[in-house]
Structures are given as C-alpha cells and as structure tokens.
C-alpha cells in the first residue's frame, strides 16, 4: 500500500528546498535548523502536535515570516529574502481569511487583479475556478453567507486562481465538522493530483496526513523528527515520539541485556527487532503496535506472555482488548483484533489469554535518561 513518491527529475529542481531554517520569537525557539525538500507535484504534510512550529515553517516558506537563519529555495531560485508577492504560491489559511467585504467571486479575483490581469481574463478565470470547487452558483455571496466548507473552497479557489507553482495549506480542514472534513479531504487530494501542483499541508491530525500525503514531515518542538512516506512513518518510526504520535503504540520501559537483541522488562526477557547493538544495562523503550500482538492459540514460542482480559472495547472495524499480564512488571497491553479474529477467540472479560509479541515487531527506542 506504500504510496509512490514522485522522483525528483534530474532537470526539474524541487518546488521547495529548505536549508537549516531557524526561527526564534524572543526567547521561544520555534524552529531549529529545519531542512527538507518538496519535489514538483508532490503532496507533503507537516505533521506534529500543536505549537511545534508547523505554521511558522509554512509562513516562512510563504514569506509572511522571516527566518533568523537558513535559506528557502523555490524551483532552484533563492527566495530567502523576497517578499510574498514575488514567490508565486497560493495559500489557504487555517481560518480561511476571506475578505469579508468582498463576494466569493471578488475574493477569487483578488490575486488576479493584484497581478493586473485583464478584466475579461479575470472574470473567465474566476468562473473556471468556482466551477472547479463546485461553487459557481455562489459567486455573488459574501463570506458570511457561506458555510464553513464553502468558505474553505472559496479560499482554495482564491489561492489557485493565479496558477501558482506551489500550494500551501494551513490546517485547511481543522475548523470543519467531520463529514465535511472527510469530503473535502478527498476533494483536495483529487484536485491536487489533477493539477499536479506541489502542495504542503500543515496538520496535527495523523489520519489526515496518512491518507493524503505522498510524504510526511513529522515535527516536534521545532525540529524535524522524521521524513518519509506514510507507510514508512507508520511501520518504521525512527523515534519514540513519531511512534506514539502516529498511530497507537504499546510502550514498555526496559533495559538491554548482554545478549544482543534482547531486553528485559522486570523479570521478563524479550527478544526484539535487531537494531544497532547497545551496551548491556542501557535503559530503552520497547514499542509494539496493538494490531501486531498475537493472541489466543499462539504458534510463536518466543516472547510469550500470559495475561487476563481486563476490558473489551468494540471500535467498529476492530475490537480493542486490554490485557493485564500475569507478570506485574509488564504494563497493560492493548491488542487490536479484527471482528472475525475476536469472534473466533471467543474472548470475554476476565478470561485468561495467551499473548505473543513477535520479535520482529518489537521496536527498540532510546530512552532519554
């Protein structure tokens, strides 16, 4: 299911290249040496918790904020100190920021007028874009007369009207209710594919990032934690932060053993995914996703644990079973089971349940001491 990452063609420089971008607000360090590239036509998501610097990074790319250090390149051109008007992008803000005193059509026309396009071309292009976002009949409405989803589409049309080479989206869906959000998610993705425009979307919603992005940039406290395709971020998180922020993860505090590839949680020794060898007695954190834990008639002989079902939670497509291990040093383990697997195992609260943690799924992360 891995998404294909459009390769950077030799001739075509990346739509955006950031080199060591640093930004401070007084004492607050918002960004610390951020470097990344966005290929032409690629859809990249900046993902991270609130306050990690995603918006700041997007605003620096937009030229609405000036970096303290580092360079911003667009299609090979250094735009580090150019004003927004000379960077050729379209941006959609978190809260739309439509001009309240202008109609939908005049909002869409705004960027074209600012570029002094001919009046007839403007009108033609406005119709074309309102058509594209399905709001042709709303052209004479004011923003206050549009729903949240409609406003967001007008904002999208406004950003795309001058045919920019880059589209920037700052949490474009966060202010919308769930149904509208899911609809727009697909719409934006299809539109981006159709136009083939390089796009950066900021979000704090991991599901949004996983479903929409070609590549995800996971950020935390102003630094890039990991960059990769959604599947890679999910299956091969390189840090505990990424592992816990994207998807669910059972975490176990452990110490390394002298045997390479083994770690001990209390009295229980667990074999882990082979990683760089660590010295014995190092504190580490082990992580395994809920759906990776094997359950019931376990074929595996390694990493076997006996526990008792403490709660069962039906979550639609799957069922989450919380298991208290017999060994008190192990934490409560969450296991996700498909509906059929759950039915086959005949699990009830309070029953005893054998588990296995497949060694190639037990990830090892450094634990800061």
């Amino acid at each position: 299911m891995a998404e294909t990452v459009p390769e950077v063609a030799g001739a075509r420089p990346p739509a955006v290249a950031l080199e060591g971008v640093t930004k401070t607000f007084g004492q607050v360090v918002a960004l610390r040496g951020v470097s990344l590239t966005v290929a032409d036509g690629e859809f990249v998501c900046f993902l991270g918790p609130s306050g990690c610097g995603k918006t700041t990074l997007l605003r620096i790319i937009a030229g609405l904020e000036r970096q303290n250090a580092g360079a911003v390149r667009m299609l090979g051109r250094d735009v580090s100190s150019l004003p927004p008007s000379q960077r050729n992008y379209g941006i959609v803000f978190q809260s739309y920021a439509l001009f309240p005193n202008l109609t939908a059509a005049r909002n869409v026309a705004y960027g074209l007028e600012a570029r002094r396009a001919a009046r007839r071309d403007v009108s033609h292009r406005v119709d074309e874009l309102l058509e594209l976002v399905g709001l042709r009949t709303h052209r004479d409405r004011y923003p206050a007369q549009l729903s949240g989803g409609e406003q967001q589409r007008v904002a999208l049309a406004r950003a795309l009207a001058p045919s920019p080479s880059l589209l920037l989206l700052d949490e474009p869906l966060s202010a919308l209710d769930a149904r509208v959000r899911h609809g727009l998610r697909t719409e934006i993705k299809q539109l981006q594919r159709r136009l083939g425009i390089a796009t950066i979307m900021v979000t704090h919603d991991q599901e949004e990032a996983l479903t929409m992005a070609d590549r995800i940039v996971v950020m935390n406290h102003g630094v890039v934690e990991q960059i990769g395709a959604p599947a890679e971020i999910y299956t091969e998180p390189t840090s505990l932060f990424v592992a816990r922020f994207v998807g669910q993860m059972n975490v176990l505090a452990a110490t390394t053993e002298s045997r390479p590839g083994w770690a001990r949680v209390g009295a229980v020794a667990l074999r882990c995914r082979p990683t760089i060898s660590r010295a014995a007695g190092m504190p580490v954190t082990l992580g395994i996703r809920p759906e990776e834990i094997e359950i019931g008639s376990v074929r595996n002989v390694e990493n076997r644990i006996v526990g008792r079902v403490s709660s069962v939670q039906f979550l639609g497509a799957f069922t989450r079973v919380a298991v208290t291990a017999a060994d008190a040093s192990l934490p409560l383990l969450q296991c996700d089971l498909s509906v059929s697997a759950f039915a086959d195992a005949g699990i009830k609260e309070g029953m005893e349940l054998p588990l296995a943690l497949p060694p190639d799924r037990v990830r090892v992360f450094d634990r800061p001491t």
Partner: protein
Amino acid sequence: MLAAAGATMPDRTARRRLDVERVVRLVLIALFGALLYLFVLYPMLQVLWRSVLDGDGRFVGLANYLRYFRTPAIAASITNSLWVSTVAMVLTVLLAFIYAYGLTRTRMPGRGFFRVVAMLPLFAPSLVQAIALVYVFGNNGILTRQTGINVGIYGVRGIVLAEVFSCFPHALLILVAALSAADARLYDAAAALGASRTKTFLTVTLPGVKYGLMSACFVVFTLVITDFGAPKVIGGKYSVMATEIYNQVIGQQNFTMGATVSVVLLVPAVVAFLVDWIVQRRQYALVSASARPLRPGDGALGRRLSLGYCAVVAAFIVGIDLVILTAWRSPRSLPSPGRSSRSRARISSRRPGPRPVRRSTCSRSCPSPFPAWCSGSRTSSRSTRPAAC
C-alpha cells in the same frame, strides 16, 4: 433522600440571591430613570413645549417654526451650521485618521506620548480653545502682532479651526479603537495574493474601519453642530444655530424662538446619534473571534512620515494649550483678544477681557450662566461618546 435535600438547598439560596439582585436592579433603574428625567427629558420636554407657545404662553402650534423658516436671517443659521459641521467633520476625521494610523499601524517612537498629547483638548471646553486661538491669531493676537499677518480668524475659518481642535481627540479615540481591531490574517492574505499597498489599504484597511470612520463622522458632526462656545467666541458675524438660540433668548428675550431653534437643532443631533448607535452595533459583528492581532510593520518611511505628521499636530496642540495655561495663570500679561465689533458688543457686558478663560475653566463646578437646555445637548452628546482606550 439525602441527595434530594442537598439539591434543593443551594437552589433556594440561589433563588433568594436572584430576588435580591432583581430588587437592586430595579432600584438602580429607577434611580437612573429619575436622574435622566430630571436632567435630560424634563428640560427637553420644556423646550419642546415652549416652542409651540407664543411670547405670552398661548398655544400657537407650529407658528414659531413657520416664522423661523421664513426669517432669512435666522434660517441662514441652519445652512451655516450644516456647512461648518460638515467641513469640520471632514477635516477632523481626516486629520485624526492619519494620526490614529501613525499610532496604531506604525512603530514610530513616542506613540504613548503622542496619544496623551492628542487628548489634551479634552480638558478644556471648546470655548476656551477658541479664546486661545483668538489670542494667537486674532486681530491683536500674538502671531498677528509678531508677523503682521492677519489670517482673519473670525468667522467660518475660526469656527472650523476651533472645532477641529476640540473634536480631534473624540475622533481620535474612536479611530484608534477601530484601527487597533485589525485582523492580521486579512493582511497576510492580501500580501500572499500579491496586493500592492494601495490595494491592501482600499480592500482591507478601509473596509475594516468603515464603521469606526462613520462613527467618528457622526460624533464630530453632532459635537460641532451643537457647540455654542467656539462660534460665540470666534464666529464673528457668522451665525450658527447654537448662537442663534443664545441670541434669541439672552439678546432678545425671545424664549419661544430660542426653544424653536433648539428643537430644530435637535434633529440633526438625534439623527447622527441614532445612526451612530446602529453602526456601533454592527461593528461588533465584524471582528471575529479568531482574528489575529496585527503587528505593525517596520517600514522606515512610514515610520518617519507619521512621526513628522504626529509631531506637527502635537506641537500645535501643545502650543494652544500653553497659551491657555499662561492666560489662566496671568490674565493681564496677555494682549486682550481682539474681536470683531459685533461679537465684542454682544459678549463684553458679561465677560470682559481675558477673564472668560478663568471662568470657563471652573465652569464645571460653578453654576453655568446659560439655561440648562442651552448646553444640554452638548453635554449629552459628550457623554454618549463610546468609551475607547
């Protein structure tokens, strides 16, 4: 059962507290109602009643109004008032807008200082400021004697200057509030779409302060059209409605005509007040909760330009206020303000020489020599000014 008892207990105390609150509220409403009636409604009704009586107290219907509009000399005061108010309004709002823009949208140094200085004209009535202008620009004024240039301050020019001066802080307060409530997101959007400064100003800044501008216009218009002091002191032969009332009542002992002019004067004032009230209510809907405050940009040119402009305006204000202050401290050391013969004749019996300065500065505590309704409209329009800053 226990839970039920526990639940009713706070309920009862809450209800009792509600009752107390309601009583307090009723008492306060009654108190303010009485005060309002005594000081606003009653005098106004008196004036209204007077305007439909003749000199001997007989009911004559609208006869006074007909006579008013048929007497060219008196009716001219309407057009004069409208003209002066409109000119002063446009000038004041324009000057105050640029000043407020400098205070709120640039990072020029000394913004706090300039803000305080601009408020100085609030501390003396327009009458005093007009006298100060006479001291400076009058026939016998400081500047006139020093330079030999007589700017001809008596008349429309003087009235407008005095009114602009005294209304400036009122307009400024409103415009500073309006300009402070900017939504940075719209400026970001305009910048990202490549809009020029002019386009941004026309499509973002102006629409954003539209209601503030309208409000400032109405407030200034009301203040000017109801002002008596400045036209009286500096107006010369130029007759406006407020001075016409005085003229009728004090000069000719014609109370009914004075009342008639007062009622006519009330119309533009009330209209301006009502429109302003409606506009104010719409302004609140405009600033959305998610608006991000605007950080002023650091353009050096804008900063220097607005610094220069604000310095000139502030210097003028300080200069006039210094004149007021020196006149108040040593009334006899200053040249007697020259006036046109007509206005001197009219005023001199009551207030000779520079003494009015001293009188008017204490007029807040001393009983006013004018009938209550004469200054009533001015006071009420002042108190309805929206609180800003």
